[in-house]
């Protein structure tokens, strides 16, 4: 296996079988959801019981127990949103390319797994830091041209921090 790659030739040959591929993805994701919820719940600064997580997510403890079972595999998107919200965390779903997915799967949620809950102070400090920490005061501007402005309902996007502030004030 080439250094740094999480797959070998033999493994890829096994994945060439669609049934194997699909079941492998399903089991990895089932396991990942279960391990992630447990790791977040047991994270040092939380150390919640299943009952406590259930209370915060509006679920009875047996539901949390099932979600932490890697064989369960029937968690709905809504339930995952509610559990993520109980941790004060967002949820992320993607359909990546295989290479990216295999790399992601090597990061198994374990006791070192750590996710910081929403913290406005922390994020505001980061936002302030990014505005004042650079060499200049150039805002990140995804839209610049007249055509872009048309797509933006005719509004020109401000070009600097000051004009962003003015736009916000208006």
């Amino acid at each position, binding site marked *: 296996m080439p250094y740094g790659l999480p797959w070998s030739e033999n493994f890829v040959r096994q994945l060439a079988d669609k049934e194997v591929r699909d079941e492998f993805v399903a089991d990895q994701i089932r396991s990942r959801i279960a391990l992630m919820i447990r790791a977040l719940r047991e994270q040092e600064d939380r150390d919640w019981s299943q009952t406590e997580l259930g209370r915060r997510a509006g679920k009875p403890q047996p539901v949390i127990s099932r979600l932490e*079972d890697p*064989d369960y595999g029937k968690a709905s998107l809504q339930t995952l949103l509610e559990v993520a919200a109980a941790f004060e965390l967002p949820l992320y779903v993607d359909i990546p390319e295989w290479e990216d997915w295999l790399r992601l799967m090597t990061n198994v949620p374990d006791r070192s797994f750590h996710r910081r809950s929403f913290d406005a102070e922390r994020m505001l400090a980061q936002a302030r830091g990014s505005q004042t920490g650079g060499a200049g005061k150039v805002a990140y501007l995804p839209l610049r041209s007249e055509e872009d402005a048309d797509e933006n309902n005719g509004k020109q996007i401000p070009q600097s921090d000051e004009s962003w502030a003015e736009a916000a004030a208006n």
Partner: protein
Amino acid sequence: MGSIKSGLGTKPSPQRFEVDFFSRLKTLAQLPMNDWKQPLFRWLHAECHPLGEIRFEVLKVQHRPLGFRAAECVFTLIYCAVEQNDKFVPRNACAIALSRKAEIEADGSRCHALWLALE
């Protein structure tokens, strides 16, 4: 999957069992063995000590492949039991596994390596 068949090689299994087993092994292989714990894994006690079981369910059958820690990063699989009503099937699964463990420890050529972390 081929690699798991060659590792166990005793009886034919439905493909889903093989894939899920391989998937769990891949997941465990990413973790230090000291972090192997429920729900994926459990160290056994009493008459089953020092065996460990990999835990997964396929089509309502609770599979419990048994093995032992042969070295810091080596887990040797020795027997595939299942669990029904909190008991192993066969009931003497641990005794069989422990006798195989003794056999392997007496003669290292009775097992072979499968480097899953690199597979």
